Protein backbone atom coordinates (compact mmCIF):
# COMPACT_ATOMS: atom_id res chain seq x y z
CA UNK A 1 0.00 0.00 0.00
CA UNK A 2 2.94 2.29 0.57
CA UNK A 3 3.63 2.51 -3.16
CA UNK A 4 0.11 3.73 -3.87
CA UNK A 5 0.11 6.54 -1.33
CA UNK A 6 -1.35 9.68 -2.94
CA UNK A 7 -0.96 8.18 -6.42
CA UNK A 8 -4.53 9.06 -7.44
CA UNK A 9 -4.43 12.74 -6.57
CA UNK A 10 -0.89 13.13 -7.94
CA UNK A 11 -2.03 11.49 -11.22
CA UNK A 12 -4.96 13.92 -11.51
CA UNK A 13 -2.62 16.83 -10.79
CA UNK A 14 -0.11 15.64 -13.39
CA UNK A 15 -2.99 15.21 -15.86
CA UNK A 16 -4.21 18.77 -15.32
CA UNK A 17 -0.72 20.27 -15.59
CA UNK A 18 0.15 18.17 -18.67
CA UNK A 19 -3.15 19.12 -20.28
CA UNK A 20 -2.52 22.83 -19.74
CA UNK A 21 1.09 22.79 -20.94
CA UNK A 22 0.38 20.67 -24.05
CA UNK A 23 -2.91 22.50 -24.70
CA UNK A 24 -1.13 25.86 -24.72
CA UNK A 25 1.71 24.69 -26.97
CA UNK A 26 0.08 22.20 -29.34
CA UNK A 27 -3.65 22.91 -29.16
CA UNK A 28 -6.58 20.84 -27.97
CA UNK A 29 -5.78 17.86 -30.24
CA UNK A 30 -2.76 17.09 -28.07
CA UNK A 31 -5.07 16.75 -25.04
CA UNK A 32 -7.09 14.11 -26.91
CA UNK A 33 -3.86 12.23 -27.70
CA UNK A 34 -2.68 12.37 -24.06
CA UNK A 35 -6.01 11.07 -22.82
CA UNK A 36 -5.99 8.31 -25.44
CA UNK A 37 -2.51 7.19 -24.39
CA UNK A 38 -3.48 7.19 -20.69
CA UNK A 39 -6.61 5.11 -21.39
CA UNK A 40 -4.67 2.69 -23.60
CA UNK A 41 -2.05 2.29 -20.86
CA UNK A 42 -4.75 1.50 -18.29
CA UNK A 43 -6.53 -0.89 -20.67
CA UNK A 44 -3.31 -2.83 -21.30
CA UNK A 45 -2.72 -3.15 -17.55
CA UNK A 46 -6.31 -4.36 -17.07
CA UNK A 47 -5.67 -6.96 -19.79
CA UNK A 48 -2.61 -8.10 -17.84
CA UNK A 49 -4.78 -8.35 -14.69
CA UNK A 50 -7.25 -10.53 -16.64
CA UNK A 51 -4.41 -12.74 -17.88
CA UNK A 52 -3.32 -13.19 -14.27
CA UNK A 53 -6.85 -14.49 -13.58
CA UNK A 54 -7.96 -11.74 -11.20
CA UNK A 55 -11.39 -11.41 -12.80
CA UNK A 56 -13.37 -9.43 -10.20
CA UNK A 57 -10.70 -6.69 -9.78
CA UNK A 58 -10.54 -6.48 -13.58
CA UNK A 59 -14.32 -5.93 -13.75
CA UNK A 60 -14.14 -3.29 -11.02
CA UNK A 61 -11.30 -1.44 -12.77
CA UNK A 62 -13.04 -1.72 -16.14
CA UNK A 63 -16.16 -0.20 -14.60
CA UNK A 64 -14.20 2.96 -13.77
CA UNK A 65 -12.26 2.95 -17.04
CA UNK A 66 -15.30 2.66 -19.33
CA UNK A 67 -16.87 6.04 -18.42
CA UNK A 68 -13.47 7.67 -18.90
CA UNK A 69 -13.31 6.06 -22.35
CA UNK A 70 -16.76 7.57 -23.08
CA UNK A 71 -15.33 10.96 -22.06
CA UNK A 72 -12.42 10.35 -24.42
CA UNK A 73 -14.81 9.77 -27.32
CA UNK A 74 -16.66 12.93 -26.28
CA UNK A 75 -13.39 14.84 -26.55
CA UNK A 76 -12.56 13.21 -29.88
CA UNK A 77 -15.96 14.07 -31.39
CA UNK A 78 -15.95 17.50 -29.69
CA UNK A 79 -19.22 16.63 -27.94
CA UNK A 80 -19.50 18.22 -24.51
CA UNK A 81 -22.61 16.21 -23.52
CA UNK A 82 -20.71 12.96 -24.06
CA UNK A 83 -17.66 14.32 -22.23
CA UNK A 84 -19.52 15.43 -19.12
CA UNK A 85 -21.83 12.41 -19.25
CA UNK A 86 -18.77 10.19 -19.10
CA UNK A 87 -17.28 12.14 -16.20
CA UNK A 88 -20.53 11.99 -14.21
CA UNK A 89 -20.76 8.25 -14.90
CA UNK A 90 -17.17 7.92 -13.68
CA UNK A 91 -18.08 9.48 -10.31
CA UNK A 92 -21.16 7.25 -10.06
CA UNK A 93 -19.00 4.19 -10.79
CA UNK A 94 -16.49 5.33 -8.14
CA UNK A 95 -19.20 5.52 -5.48
CA UNK A 96 -20.70 2.14 -6.49
CA UNK A 97 -17.27 0.48 -6.42
CA UNK A 98 -16.50 1.96 -2.99
CA UNK A 99 -19.79 0.67 -1.61
CA UNK A 100 -19.23 -2.78 -3.13
CA UNK A 101 -15.68 -3.05 -1.76
CA UNK A 102 -16.83 -2.02 1.72
CA UNK A 103 -19.69 -4.53 1.62
CA UNK A 104 -17.57 -7.54 0.60
CA UNK A 105 -15.04 -6.80 3.33
CA UNK A 106 -17.77 -6.94 5.98
Amino acid at each position, binding site marked *: MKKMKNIG*IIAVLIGIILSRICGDYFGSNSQVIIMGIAILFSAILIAV*IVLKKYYIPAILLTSILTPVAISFFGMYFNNLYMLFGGLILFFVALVIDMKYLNSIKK
Partner: protein
Amino acid sequence: MSGNMFAYCKNNPVGMADEDGDRPSFIGETASDVELSVAKTQQMLTGRSVPKPVTHTTSSSFNIASSAKSNIGTAVADKAASKGVSGIVNVSKKLVSGALATCKYVDAPTIGEVIRTKALGSFGSILCTGSNVITSIIHKQYVGACMDLVSGAAGIFAGYGLESIGIAIAATFGLPELLVGGVVFGVGIAVGVGLDYGENELKSEWYKRRK
Protein backbone atom coordinates in the same frame (compact mmCIF):
# COMPACT_ATOMS: atom_id res chain seq x y z
CA MET B 1 -12.94 26.05 -61.48
CA SER B 2 -16.12 28.13 -61.14
CA GLY B 3 -15.46 30.41 -64.09
CA ASN B 4 -15.16 33.41 -61.77
CA MET B 5 -12.18 35.42 -62.99
CA PHE B 6 -11.84 37.22 -59.65
CA ALA B 7 -11.88 34.12 -57.49
CA TYR B 8 -8.10 34.40 -57.03
CA CYS B 9 -8.60 37.57 -54.92
CA LYS B 10 -11.91 36.60 -53.27
CA ASN B 11 -13.96 38.85 -55.61
CA ASN B 12 -12.10 41.94 -54.43
CA PRO B 13 -9.73 42.90 -57.27
CA VAL B 14 -9.53 46.52 -56.08
CA GLY B 15 -8.42 45.85 -52.51
CA MET B 16 -6.63 42.49 -52.81
CA ALA B 17 -3.88 41.05 -54.97
CA ASP B 18 -2.15 37.69 -55.40
CA GLU B 19 1.30 38.49 -56.65
CA ASP B 20 3.09 35.21 -55.95
CA GLY B 21 0.12 32.94 -56.64
CA ASP B 22 0.21 31.51 -53.11
CA ARG B 23 -2.78 33.21 -51.51
CA PRO B 24 -4.53 36.61 -51.82
CA SER B 25 -3.60 39.40 -49.45
CA PHE B 26 -4.71 42.97 -49.01
CA ILE B 27 -2.67 45.52 -50.93
CA GLY B 28 -0.09 47.03 -48.54
CA GLU B 29 -0.42 44.19 -46.02
CA THR B 30 2.85 43.09 -44.35
CA ALA B 31 3.93 39.70 -43.01
CA SER B 32 3.54 40.84 -39.38
CA ASP B 33 -0.09 41.88 -40.06
CA VAL B 34 -0.81 38.36 -41.30
CA GLU B 35 0.87 36.81 -38.25
CA LEU B 36 -1.14 39.01 -35.90
CA SER B 37 -4.35 38.15 -37.70
CA VAL B 38 -3.63 34.42 -37.54
CA ALA B 39 -2.80 34.69 -33.83
CA LYS B 40 -6.04 36.58 -33.11
CA THR B 41 -8.09 34.05 -35.06
CA GLN B 42 -6.42 31.19 -33.22
CA GLN B 43 -7.16 32.88 -29.90
CA MET B 44 -10.79 33.36 -30.90
CA LEU B 45 -11.19 29.73 -31.98
CA THR B 46 -9.43 28.03 -29.07
CA GLY B 47 -10.24 30.49 -26.31
CA ARG B 48 -6.66 30.16 -25.06
CA SER B 49 -3.92 32.70 -24.75
CA VAL B 50 -1.41 32.92 -27.60
CA PRO B 51 2.06 34.40 -27.43
CA LYS B 52 1.97 38.11 -28.16
CA PRO B 53 4.31 39.63 -30.80
CA VAL B 54 7.53 40.86 -29.21
CA THR B 55 7.54 44.59 -28.65
CA HIS B 56 10.44 46.34 -27.01
CA THR B 57 8.40 49.21 -25.60
CA THR B 58 6.42 47.18 -23.03
CA SER B 59 7.50 47.11 -19.40
CA SER B 60 7.74 44.07 -17.10
CA SER B 61 4.52 42.04 -16.79
CA PHE B 62 5.05 41.41 -13.04
CA ASN B 63 2.34 43.08 -11.03
CA ILE B 64 2.89 43.21 -7.27
CA ALA B 65 -0.79 43.68 -6.40
CA SER B 66 -2.09 40.75 -8.47
CA SER B 67 0.79 38.53 -7.32
CA ALA B 68 0.08 39.33 -3.66
CA LYS B 69 -3.65 38.68 -4.17
CA SER B 70 -2.98 35.34 -5.83
CA ASN B 71 -0.53 34.24 -3.11
CA ILE B 72 -2.89 35.24 -0.31
CA GLY B 73 -5.77 33.39 -1.96
CA THR B 74 -3.71 30.24 -2.39
CA ALA B 75 -2.41 30.39 1.18
CA VAL B 76 -5.93 30.82 2.61
CA ALA B 77 -7.27 27.90 0.52
CA ASP B 78 -4.38 25.68 1.60
CA LYS B 79 -4.74 26.61 5.26
CA ALA B 80 -8.49 25.94 5.20
CA ALA B 81 -8.01 22.57 3.51
CA SER B 82 -5.26 21.45 5.90
CA LYS B 83 -7.41 22.52 8.84
CA GLY B 84 -10.31 20.50 7.44
CA VAL B 85 -8.35 17.28 6.96
CA SER B 86 -6.10 17.59 10.00
CA GLY B 87 -8.16 15.04 11.93
CA ILE B 88 -8.03 12.40 9.22
CA VAL B 89 -4.91 10.28 9.18
CA ASN B 90 -3.97 7.83 6.45
CA VAL B 91 -3.65 4.31 7.84
CA SER B 92 -3.47 2.43 4.59
CA LYS B 93 -0.97 -0.04 6.04
CA LYS B 94 -3.47 -1.79 8.30
CA LEU B 95 -7.12 -2.70 8.68
CA VAL B 96 -9.03 -0.84 11.36
CA SER B 97 -11.25 -2.98 13.62
CA GLY B 98 -11.64 -5.76 11.08
CA ALA B 99 -13.10 -3.52 8.37
CA LEU B 100 -11.33 -2.23 5.33
CA ALA B 101 -10.40 1.39 5.87
CA THR B 102 -7.94 3.73 4.28
CA CYS B 103 -8.45 6.52 6.82
CA LYS B 104 -9.27 6.85 10.49
CA TYR B 105 -10.34 9.80 12.56
CA VAL B 106 -8.14 10.93 15.42
CA ASP B 107 -8.92 13.63 17.96
CA ALA B 108 -5.41 14.98 18.42
CA PRO B 109 -3.10 14.22 15.46
CA THR B 110 0.63 14.42 16.07
CA ILE B 111 2.82 16.80 14.07
CA GLY B 112 4.06 13.95 11.87
CA GLU B 113 0.50 12.91 11.05
CA VAL B 114 -0.48 16.48 10.23
CA ILE B 115 2.49 16.81 7.89
CA ARG B 116 1.62 13.50 6.24
CA THR B 117 -1.98 14.61 5.64
CA LYS B 118 -0.71 17.69 3.80
CA ALA B 119 0.20 15.64 0.78
CA LEU B 120 1.89 16.91 -2.31
CA GLY B 121 -0.99 16.08 -4.62
CA SER B 122 -3.74 17.83 -2.70
CA PHE B 123 -1.48 20.82 -2.09
CA GLY B 124 -0.74 21.07 -5.81
CA SER B 125 -4.39 20.67 -6.79
CA ILE B 126 -5.47 23.35 -4.34
CA LEU B 127 -2.67 25.61 -5.62
CA CYS B 128 -3.77 25.08 -9.24
CA THR B 129 -7.44 25.63 -8.47
CA GLY B 130 -6.71 28.67 -6.29
CA SER B 131 -4.61 30.34 -8.96
CA ASN B 132 -7.31 29.65 -11.59
CA VAL B 133 -10.07 31.05 -9.42
CA ILE B 134 -8.08 34.20 -8.60
CA THR B 135 -7.23 34.73 -12.28
CA SER B 136 -10.90 34.37 -13.25
CA ILE B 137 -12.00 36.80 -10.54
CA ILE B 138 -9.35 39.34 -11.60
CA HIS B 139 -10.73 39.14 -15.15
CA LYS B 140 -14.26 39.54 -13.73
CA GLN B 141 -15.26 36.09 -14.99
CA TYR B 142 -17.25 35.02 -11.94
CA VAL B 143 -19.01 32.11 -13.66
CA GLY B 144 -15.60 30.95 -14.84
CA ALA B 145 -14.34 31.09 -11.24
CA CYS B 146 -17.23 28.85 -10.16
CA MET B 147 -16.39 26.42 -12.97
CA ASP B 148 -12.75 26.38 -11.78
CA LEU B 149 -13.88 25.63 -8.22
CA VAL B 150 -16.18 22.79 -9.28
CA SER B 151 -13.51 21.32 -11.56
CA GLY B 152 -10.87 21.49 -8.80
CA ALA B 153 -13.18 19.86 -6.26
CA ALA B 154 -14.10 17.14 -8.76
CA GLY B 155 -10.40 16.53 -9.46
CA ILE B 156 -9.56 16.16 -5.76
CA PHE B 157 -12.56 13.85 -5.19
CA ALA B 158 -11.64 11.76 -8.21
CA GLY B 159 -8.01 11.51 -7.05
CA TYR B 160 -8.84 10.38 -3.52
CA GLY B 161 -11.62 8.08 -4.74
CA LEU B 162 -9.33 6.36 -7.26
CA GLU B 163 -6.62 5.97 -4.66
CA SER B 164 -8.92 4.45 -2.04
CA ILE B 165 -10.41 2.07 -4.62
CA GLY B 166 -6.94 1.03 -5.75
CA ILE B 167 -5.79 0.37 -2.18
CA ALA B 168 -9.00 -1.49 -1.38
CA ILE B 169 -8.71 -3.71 -4.47
CA ALA B 170 -5.05 -4.49 -3.75
CA ALA B 171 -5.83 -5.29 -0.11
CA THR B 172 -8.98 -7.31 -0.75
CA PHE B 173 -7.96 -9.41 -3.73
CA GLY B 174 -4.21 -9.56 -3.17
CA LEU B 175 -3.48 -8.00 -6.53
CA PRO B 176 0.08 -6.74 -7.27
CA GLU B 177 0.25 -3.09 -6.25
CA LEU B 178 2.19 -2.13 -9.33
CA LEU B 179 -0.63 -3.25 -11.64
CA VAL B 180 -3.40 -1.54 -9.67
CA GLY B 181 -1.23 1.56 -9.19
CA GLY B 182 -0.58 1.71 -12.94
CA VAL B 183 -4.29 1.52 -13.76
CA VAL B 184 -5.11 4.14 -11.12
CA PHE B 185 -2.34 6.38 -12.43
CA GLY B 186 -3.53 6.10 -16.04
CA VAL B 187 -7.18 6.70 -15.17
CA GLY B 188 -6.15 9.62 -12.95
CA ILE B 189 -4.23 11.29 -15.77
CA ALA B 190 -7.15 10.72 -18.16
CA VAL B 191 -9.63 12.21 -15.66
CA GLY B 192 -7.35 15.23 -15.07
CA VAL B 193 -7.04 15.90 -18.81
CA GLY B 194 -10.79 15.39 -19.31
CA LEU B 195 -11.72 17.75 -16.49
CA ASP B 196 -9.34 20.47 -17.73
CA TYR B 197 -10.50 20.11 -21.34
CA GLY B 198 -14.18 20.11 -20.37
CA GLU B 199 -13.77 23.12 -18.10
CA ASN B 200 -12.00 25.12 -20.82
CA GLU B 201 -14.54 24.18 -23.48
CA LEU B 202 -17.45 25.03 -21.19
CA LYS B 203 -15.89 28.35 -20.26
CA SER B 204 -15.22 29.34 -23.85
CA GLU B 205 -18.77 28.29 -24.85
CA TRP B 206 -20.26 30.36 -22.04
CA TYR B 207 -18.28 33.53 -22.70
CA LYS B 208 -18.70 33.25 -26.49
CA ARG B 209 -22.46 33.12 -26.03
CA ARG B 210 -22.41 36.08 -23.65
CA LYS B 211 -20.53 38.35 -26.11
